[in-house]
């Protein structure tokens, strides 16, 4: 076009006439050009930047996972001196009111925002002062024990009620922006409504537990049952050294609202001195009582049989010379946190080791001990109600926030109001604050923010010892039924699953794709190639959801029904093909030449169909003969291991036989063959093949018998219990997606080998096969390598196929007949349910980042190798 425009006017003008040309470019052209240059440069750079931002964004989202916590603010309130040390503190979940309880039943309450005192009722203990105090982990069910051997249970609740804005009382004293009070309760303004927070208390009548006049020294209390039929369980230790477990079962009359209480007592045989007991711990079902001695000895009583408690185990939780100064149950009441006089912290729980030492086989085990030591003796441990966090207070007044499972110190809250230490700390119900009351009557509130306490690099990529497990493991279990079970977020099972799927599928895809590529590039006539290659590339365009669907709903039942046939097909197909190839050699050379090309493809097809038919027929027979009639049952461990070993060993023994027959089947033998007529030579070769095949089958049989004698069994490794949606099915399906990629790229690489190399080789008298294997393949090796790497990249990122065709079970199991869960499938399954900015959400972003980095590295390696190969191929 431009050519003709430029040429036409030149012809019309006589050459001699000087034509004056406007030399100046129009301003508009210059302007457009500059505009285009800048906008394209800026646009292009921006798009490139935007694409690279993906990685940075993913990193930015998952970075907070590794953050500890931070303190958002500290508040100090003067409560005034207290008549006695505080027993416990409580705060509501909106951090409106905080209360502190004294042994004489007096409650001090104040508004958290400003420290303004709030008038609240007090417990009327009849003038007595509690000698023992216990509360549930939430702190709202409490128990006092007294000098006279009685106990009183009660409730101390901070309740919040939502009322419409109109119903709020008018004459309120304003406390701060949000809150106002009438002196006894706090009203918080929330959009359109008011929240009224009050302190509600209740106290039950005294119950005589110990003999009259014998003081209760220690107690623990749990509240269970339902609202209508509360079941209170408590364990008490009196000054006489008697340890009693008591259940108070109350039936509330629906009409009158009055309750009748039934008490049952059981005495627990205690051998230790009562004065040395540091603490007694009870769990909510009431089937376990721990008596903790000051010297670190723990007596664990099994009280499952209420009437007959038994001492199940005696454990030592502190080394000699260190005393237990604080101990408590963690949320869910399985683990205990032990604080020592040397500032050490350790976490213990019972692991079922089927031990003979204890009556129930469970051994109290130190699970987490690598906590940072605090500078002074631990005086108090308070646990979070929803996570595995807890605070530890030491004698110097430091409060540290830690996480149990990861053994991490999240925050070190410094200082103390007076240097004399703190007496009652508490963890805010939403884990967003820590309240501590000093002995001088000053309270400290730290507003804390620890969004992801449970994740560290170790917990994501390393082994973690979770509660209830007998050893540290890699587990992915993102959601649990209750807060009591912590989420377990190890990426290792997912990364393992990713590579399991990728490797099994590559084991299928590489042979098919590479061999097909070599054949297409070297043996197929160009016209056939022009059809064959696009058809194979068509495979790459199939949406993976379709492949996954067919794999899961059509292929997996077929594989399940015909598993034996499929297992033996891996051996039958090559055997039939090789036999057919030797038979093919029997054809006279002109006929063979004539059939070369497209007709030969049909011969291959026939051979494959024959092999498939043979496997299908033989499947049930082999299943009956070798696998006791049911392959799936066989995988669970029934029957003999030998037949399967035999099948697996065939390729290896084939190679062995080939090596062993090398001295016979040598150059001289082949020279000899060459001088024979073709038909004779081909028959000799066929005969030789039969002998080799028979020898390798025999060798495989012998080897498998030998291995069985040694006691080796393939089951338990890569072959184990069969599940319907398994790695084999996924391997087939992913192979489907990988084959066209590996095929196309390696075919291109083979094709790029300069043709004069081939011509040279052929001219020297090498056959096509020799040229291929000695000239073309080595030249194209790096290109083929990059094809495999790109195939691996595709397999690693495949999502829908894996989601649909595996059971999505995140397990570490190499068994080819078991399911798996890959990183990508995990994201796909869990992200739609994940709450924004939650730990799971960020962990899934981390999964994406890991996937991104993995594929990016794989692809870059492939690309670099390919570019080097291109350069080299160009130089040849």
């Amino acid at each position, binding site marked *: 076009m431009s050519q003709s425009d430029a040429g036409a006017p030149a012809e019309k003008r006589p050459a001699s006439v000087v034509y004056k040309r406007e030399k100046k470019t129009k301003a508009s052209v210059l302007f457009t050009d500059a505009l285009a240059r800048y906008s394209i440069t800026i646009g292009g750079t921006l798009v490139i930047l935007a694409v690279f931002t993906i990685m940075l964004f993913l990193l930015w989202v998952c970075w907070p996972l590794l953050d500890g916590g931070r303190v958002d603010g500290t508040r100090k309130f003067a409560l005034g001196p207290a008549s006695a040390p505080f027993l416990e503190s409580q705060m509501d979940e909106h951090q409106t009111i905080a209360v502190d309880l004294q042994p004489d039943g007096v409650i001090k309450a104040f508004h958290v925002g400003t420290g303004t005192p709030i008038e609240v009722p007090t417990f009327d203990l009849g003038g007595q002062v509690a000698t023992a105090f216990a509360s549930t982990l939430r702190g709202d069910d409490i128990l006092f024990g007294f000098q006279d051997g009685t106990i009183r249970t009660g409730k101390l609740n901070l309740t919040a009620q939502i009322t419409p804005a109109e119903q709020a009382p008018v004459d309120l004293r304003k406390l701060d922006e949000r809150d106002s009070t009438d002196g006894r309760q706090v009203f918080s303004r929330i959009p359109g409504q008011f929240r009224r927070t009050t302190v509600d208390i209740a106290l039950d009548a005294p119950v005589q537990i110990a003999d009259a006049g014998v003081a209760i020294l220690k107690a623990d209390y749990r509240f269970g049952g339902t609202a209508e039929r509360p079941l209170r369980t408590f364990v008490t230790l009196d000054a006489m050294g008697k340890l009693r477990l008591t259940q108070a079962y109350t039936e509330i009359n629906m009409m009158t609202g009055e309750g009748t209480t039934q008490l049952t007592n059981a005495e627990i045989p205690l051998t230790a001195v009562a004065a040395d007991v540091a603490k007694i711990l009870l769990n909510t079902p009431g089937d376990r009582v721990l008596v903790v001695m000051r010297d670190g000895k723990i007596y664990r009583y099994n009280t499952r049989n209420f009437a007959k408690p038994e001492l199940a185990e005696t454990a030592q939780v502190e080394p000699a010379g260190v005393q237990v100064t604080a101990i408590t149950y963690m949320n869910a009441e399985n683990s205990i946190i032990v604080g020592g006089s040397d500032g050490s912290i350790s976490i213990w729980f019972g692991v079922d080791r089927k031990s003979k030492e204890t009556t129930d086989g469970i051994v109290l085990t130190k699970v987490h001990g690598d906590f940072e030591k605090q500078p002074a003796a631990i005086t108090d441990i308070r646990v979070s109600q929803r996570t595995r966090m807890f605070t530890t207070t030491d004698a110097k007044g430091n409060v540290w926030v830690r996480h149990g499972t990861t053994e991490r110190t999240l925050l070190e809250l410094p200082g103390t109001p007076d240097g004399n230490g703190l007496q009652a700390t508490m963890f805010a119900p939403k884990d967003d604050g820590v309240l501590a009351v000093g002995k001088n009557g000053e309270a400290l509130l730290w507003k804390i923010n620890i969004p992801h306490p449970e994740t560290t690099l170790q917990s994501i990529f390393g082994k973690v010892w979770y509660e209830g497990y007998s050893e540290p493991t890699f587990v992915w279990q993102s959601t649990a039924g209750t807060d009591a079970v912590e989420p377990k977020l190890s990426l290792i099972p997912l990364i393992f699953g990713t590579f399991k799927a990728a490797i099994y599928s590559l084991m299928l895809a590489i042979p098919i794709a590479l061999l097909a590529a070599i054949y297409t590039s070297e043996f197929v006539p160009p016209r056939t190639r022009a059809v064959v290659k696009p058809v194979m590339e068509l495979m790459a365009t199939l949406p993976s959801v379709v492949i996954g669907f067919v794999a899961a709903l059509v292929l997996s039942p077929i594989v399940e029904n015909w598993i034996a046939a499929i297992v033996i097909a891996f051996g039958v197909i090559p055997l039939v*093909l090789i036999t057919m190839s030797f038979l093919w050699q029997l054809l006279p050379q002109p006929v063979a030449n004539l059939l070369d090309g497209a007709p030969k493809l049909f011969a291959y097809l026939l051979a494959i169909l024959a092999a498939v038919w043979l496997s299908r027929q033989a499947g049930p027979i082999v299943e009956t003969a070798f696998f006791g009639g049911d392959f799936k049952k066989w995988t669970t461990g029934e029957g003999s291991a030998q037949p399967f070993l035999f099948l697996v060993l065939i390729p290896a023994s084939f190679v062995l036989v080939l090596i062993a027959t090398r001295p016979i089947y040598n150059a001289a033998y082949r020279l000899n063959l060459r001088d024979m007529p073709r038909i004779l030579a081909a028959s000799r070769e066929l005969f030789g093949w039969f002998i080799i095949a028979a020898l390798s089958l025999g060798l495989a049989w012998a080897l498998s018998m030998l291995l069985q004698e040694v006691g080796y069994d393939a089951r338990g490794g890569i072959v184990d219990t069969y599940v319907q949606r398994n790695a084999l099915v996924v391997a087939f399906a992913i192979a489907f997606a990988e084959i066209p990629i590996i095929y196309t790229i390696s075919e291109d690489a083979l094709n790029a080998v300069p043709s004069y190399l081939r011509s040279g080789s052929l001219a020297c008298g090498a056959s096509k096969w020799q040229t291929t294997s000695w000239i073309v393949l080595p030249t194209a090796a790096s290109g083929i390598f990059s094809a495999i790497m790109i195939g691996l990249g595709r397999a690693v990122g495949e*999502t829908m196929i894996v989601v649909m065709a595996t059971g999505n079970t995140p397990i570490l199991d190499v068994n080819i007949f078991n399911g798996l869960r890959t990183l990508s499938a995990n994201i796909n399954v869990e992200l739609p349910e994940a709450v*924004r900015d939650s730990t799971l959400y960020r962990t899934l972003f981390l999964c994406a980042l890991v996937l991104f980095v993995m594929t990016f590295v794989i692809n870059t390696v492939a690309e670099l190798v390919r570019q080097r190969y291109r350069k080299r191929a160009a130089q040849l």
Partner: protein
Amino acid sequence: MSDPTATTAKPILPVRRIARSDLAARGEPFVWIMGAALVIGLTMITGFLAFVIYVGALTFWPQPVAVVTTTQGKVIAGEPFRTETFKPRPEQLEGASPEARAQVEADLGIVERTLYRVGNYDLFGEDFAWVSTFEVKSTTYPKDMYFTERLEWGPFVGRMKELDAAGAKQASPTYKQLRDAHALAVVRRAEIARLEKVEIAGINHDIEDLRLGIRRADLEYGAGSPEAAAAKARAAEETAKLEARYKVLEQKVTSLRQIDETYAVTLEAIDGQTKTLPLSNLVRFYPANDLSVGEKWSIYGARWIEFITTQPREANTEGGILPALVGTLTMMILLSLAVAPFGVVTALYLREYAKQGAFVSFIRICVNNLAGVPSIVYGVFGLGFFCYILGGSIDQIFFPEKLPSPTFGTGGMLWASLTLALLTVPVVIVATEEALAAVPRSMREGSLACGASKWQTIARIVLPRAAPGIMTGLILAMARGAGEVAPLMIVGVVKLAPELPIDMTAPFVHFERSFMHLGFHIYDVGFQSRNSEAGRPMVFVTTLLLISLVLMLNAFAIYVRNRLKRSYQVGQF
């Protein structure tokens, strides 16, 4: 190596050469294994396509209804659905006759069985029944068996016992009578649907708009301000009007329904149970064993039309896929609108403007690799960045009255398209770069020599030549977008979204809406529905549609690419 040809070629003295070739040197077994690998690959793809096309195309073909009597005296009537072999457990063989058992024994315990679609879910509690071949006593195809598709409860297989046309009862009605009565019932159903879905839904939409208007006024002028009060009064007035209209329409619908219910048909299942339902509840019915070829074709065609043009029913396992089709196509168009300018501009920059060097080739490698990054990663990015950060900000600025329920702050059409655009931008960049590189240097030089500026050269010489290549890249990107499901599941695809992204309510395009997608439809119906067996035909047909769409796009791309090659050959000089 010990190549005999090489050793014999060495001597200088003329030797007799043997023309016969060495059999081992030909490596025939290796050639066979390689050839077989290629054939396996080809068989996989052709077999896969043939299977999907065969099953998908056959799904809507009316099958005969077989009445099977088993040796145990059980009678079932249903469409044969599929046949397979299995290994029965011993207890499944207990009722079999001794001969049957001997036969099973001889076949190594493998038995053939057929799945019949027996329908009548409301009566039987299941849609399907397996019948093993050895238990069949007789199979007949009675001419009066009808296969009936209903709006609810799936198909009904049985006889037409009675037709009740507003009191005029007719026992054992003929196919023609039924069809005439049904044609009228369909008109009534369409009218009711129009009133409900268009008129009443429109009124509801207007009322919701008014409510949001009040909230917006509150937020803008402060609650209790005179402007807000005025808005409230206006809205109350309008709402009252709308509600009056709503009452009238409701009345109309009720009376129509009452009339409609007087036209009923009584169906009788094979076991004698009967079921009476309004004629308008039937979607389609036909005497399955008494159809001419022409009638079969017309049913086949009608089913395809229903499939393409109607909304899904019965948890997506029946009815059509119109929303999924529209969703997929809209997304593809949005995607190409987004991806084309960015991809082309980047490629232009990389190829024409950037200084070629180590840095640009590094960028090129990275762009290439981004095409290999798993799609799900882009989905994660799309959710975090587009939906939550961009969408969240848009909501706060433009739609504060709807908060906390998100408008753009959640997955939707726009974000899904942008995510896929990001995913496919490397494809377009690579394709465009290749197309630009393929434009001969001489053409550029010629243009520049004639005094054209760089941009003029690009715009008038380079881009037109590269256009087919760019088109190829775009089409491939669209094909990839059509087939991707994983990222969409995170950024906006849902199982049921009857509201299309483009409709008749202002502003006509609703890119914030979540949408349905063919690929996700396959996943959802095949794996998430109550009865995956009943949904299977639907899945196969949807698969066929999706594959045809993707293959058509790819075929078109190949066609464009081939034309491009040819036009270069002409253009080169």
